[in-house]
């Protein structure tokens, strides 16, 4: 047994209103630079819908993740090492920019430069890829709120043969997605240079920008298509789990800014020696249980003897994520069948069921009605099962029943019923109340239980070796193309800047407004003072 720790995330989908705040703040922080215009470390998809990039879940086409070979051993779905090297000169299965969308800007100059005429001048769109005038026809959330035909959704196709949903059957919810920071990351396994790595201390998966050589195999390897290729720097980039923030105990930007307050962050302990066994269970439907078994109870005596800092063990005991995933079993992994053992889990939404009930005039808060509806509404439940449990409806049913039980029980409590009876969902009254507390009321420090960086006394954090930031920023014409030079290992929210901001009343003059920084140049205060080149 080799116990390792990871900061994991759970999102409660019932609360997501699809406002895209998380996507926008994430973009402002990490990908507001040339070369990554199309890159959304966090994106919010409407389900049913095609997702981003389009139909990424169709693994017959994109070949992401792992499969079992004939001998039952794990194998990269896109092919093994030799095959990767033989096809390195042109990756045969890489999405093109059209599968994402062609990013654009507007030619605002036209507003002031247009010759005098009776028509009001407009700012015509220009492609950021070709520089040519373009017609905007797709984006990262073009089919938002069912604003398009959901039938190309590969998950929907698996659920129902009659793919076009009739109006009465229609259901909808939002699915915010970031990199899963998998336990068995196929992006890491696909990287020929070994530039991608998983951090032992907190499980965050990062790209070492100095070692990436642009072989772009990771883009194919990730089944969630959360590896992106920066077309200006020629290097791969991905969600960083806001490691500079997490290292000092702050939640990720997407969590911090979420208006629904639906994201939870906390420590999960797992047995690193059992990861590959869990990822290779023969039946896809057993992957959910197998992954649950890899997680270690923080009160297990083995944890005390493991080489973990005490504050991490303490954080693991208070982890909201552990409770949602393992204690209440209401959070489920996204697409476990990809066999990467993802670490961002989801509480499935009960609202499609409640809405359907209320639409038929029934009491949508009543446990008996809800239980019956969960059984009867085959398509929503089947759909959720295809997303979260490789098609097995049982765990989805359990989770939804527990949410329904909590709902009707708490209504009874809040209406002051003398002896509310907890509906039968396998949870006691106390558990229902605690679960309700965590889902509905939990404060900031209950939702985010993040110990500071591993092995360091709180407050002293050495910056890691990887960073997406570098001197000069991409887009500058350096001698070897647009992005060369030596990267300065600083993180956007570096520790000292952060401390300064938190402990002083005044904003120092050298502090740059990150939200207005487009990645060009080095505004004063963003980077530490440059050491004199000798």
């Amino acid at each position, binding site marked *: 047994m080799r116990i390792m720790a990871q900061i994991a995330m759970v999102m409660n989908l019932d609360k997501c209103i699809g406002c895209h705040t998380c996507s926008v703040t994430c973009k402002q922080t990490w990908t507001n630079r040339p070369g990554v215009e199309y890159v959304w470390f966090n994106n919010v998809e409407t389900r049913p819908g095609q997702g981003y990039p389009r139909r990424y879940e169709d693994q017959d086409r994109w070949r992401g993740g792992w499969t079992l070979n004939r001998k039952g051993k794990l194998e990269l779905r896109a092919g093994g090492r030799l095959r990767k090297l033989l096809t390195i000169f042109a990756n045969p299965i890489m999405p093109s920019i059209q599968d994402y969308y062609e990013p654009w800007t507007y030619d605002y100059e036209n507003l002031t430069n247009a010759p005098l005429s009776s028509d009001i001048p407009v700012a015509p769109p220009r492609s950021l890829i070709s520089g040519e005038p373009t017609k905007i026809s797709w984006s990262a959330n073009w089919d938002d709120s069912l604003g398009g035909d959901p039938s190309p959704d590969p998950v929907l196709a698996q659920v129902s043969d009659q793919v076009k949903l009739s109006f009465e059957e229609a259901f909808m919810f939002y699915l915010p997605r970031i990199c899963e920071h998998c336990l068995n990351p196929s992006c890491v396994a696909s990287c020929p240079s070994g530039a991608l790595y998983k951090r032992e201390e907190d499980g965050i998966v990062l790209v070492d920008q100095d070692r990436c*050589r642009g072989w772009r195999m990771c883009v194919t390897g990730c089944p969630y298509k959360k590896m992106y290729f920066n077309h200006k720097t020629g290097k791969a980039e991905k969600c960083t789990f806001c490691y500079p923030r997490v290292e000092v105990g702050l939640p990720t930007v997407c969590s911090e800014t979420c208006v629904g307050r639906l994201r939870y962050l906390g420590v999960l302990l797992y047995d690193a020696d059992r990861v590959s066994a869990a990822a290779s269970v023969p039946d896809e439907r057993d992957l959910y249980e197998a992954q649950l078994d890899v997680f270690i109870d923080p009160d297990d005596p083995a944890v005390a003897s493991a080489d973990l800092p005490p504050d991490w063990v303490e954080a693991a005991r208070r982890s909201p994520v552990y409770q949602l995933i393992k204690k209440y079993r209401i959070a489920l992994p996204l697409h476990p069948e990809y066999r990467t053992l993802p670490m961002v889990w989801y509480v499935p939404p009960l609202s499609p069921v409640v809405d359907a009930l209320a639409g038929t005039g029934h009491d949508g808060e009543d446990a008996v009605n809800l239980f019956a509806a969960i059984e009867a509404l085959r398509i929503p439940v089947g759909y959720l099962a295809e997303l979260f449990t490789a098609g097995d409806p049982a765990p989805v049913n359990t989770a939804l029943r527990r949410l329904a039980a909590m709902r009707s029980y708490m209504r009874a409590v809040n209406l002051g019923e003398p002896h509310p009876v907890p509906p039968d969902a396998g949870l006691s009254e106390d558990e229902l109340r605690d679960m309700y507390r965590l889902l509905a009321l939990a404060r900031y420090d209950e939702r985010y239980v993040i110990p500071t960086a591993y092995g360091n006394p709180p407050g002293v954090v050495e910056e890691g070796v990887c960073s997406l930031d570098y001197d000069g920023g991409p887009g500058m014409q350096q001698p070897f193309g647009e992005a060369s030079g030596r990267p300065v290992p600083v993180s956007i929210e570096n520790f000292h800047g952060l401390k300064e901001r938190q402990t002083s009343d005044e904003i120092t003059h050298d502090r740059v407004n990150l939200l207005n920084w487009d990645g060009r140049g080095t505004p004063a205060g963003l980077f530490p003072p440059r050491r004199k080149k000798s």
Partner: protein
Amino acid sequence: MSWGESMLWIVAPYITIVIFVGGLIWRYRYDKFGWTTRSSQLYESRLLRVASPLFHYALLFVIVGHITGLLIPRNWMEAIGVSNHAYHVNALTWGGIAGLATLVAVGLLIYRRRTVGPVFLATTNNDKTMYAVLALAILSGVVTTVAGFVPSEVSYRTTVAPWFRGVLILQPDVTAMAHASGLYKVHTLIGMVLIVLFPFSRLVHALSAPLGYLFRPYIVYRRRPR
């Protein structure tokens, strides 16, 4: 043999080597971040999927050809029973095919660079210079191969190759090189320019061919140095 020419075949190769090695060290230290293929596949993949593998595979043959032709002395070959005639027939066939394929592929790559809007937009002056020299090197190489169609006793095996081996052991054989035909000299010169450009262009990606991938464990863990 003129004084100038002997300078050329004695001094130039060493300057080339110094710039190549020094340039690589410098680039690695100064610009690890710029050390990449700068793949343009995101923009366009239909042409690339034909041209790039064709180019690289053909080029691998060409490189192997250069190694056998330049490094293995003629009498060694004959000692293992490969006659001059047999050697030339082989060299011409395989070298010709590989050379032509490389030429076609580099043509396709340049065509793609020029005509596909986004790819052209992402083409730097550095790329353009590199492509010009690369294309000339390949073109002159194919011409010399075809010109060597008539097998003769005086070929690069008795002129360029001894000089090349001499350079490596610090005894450049200028007399041998002086006997080479003009075509070979031109090709050799362009080759040297390409080697000089190598550390300063995108070509550095060739040196990080990720062979280690075959031997490392799939999942890479890293721990922050404490």
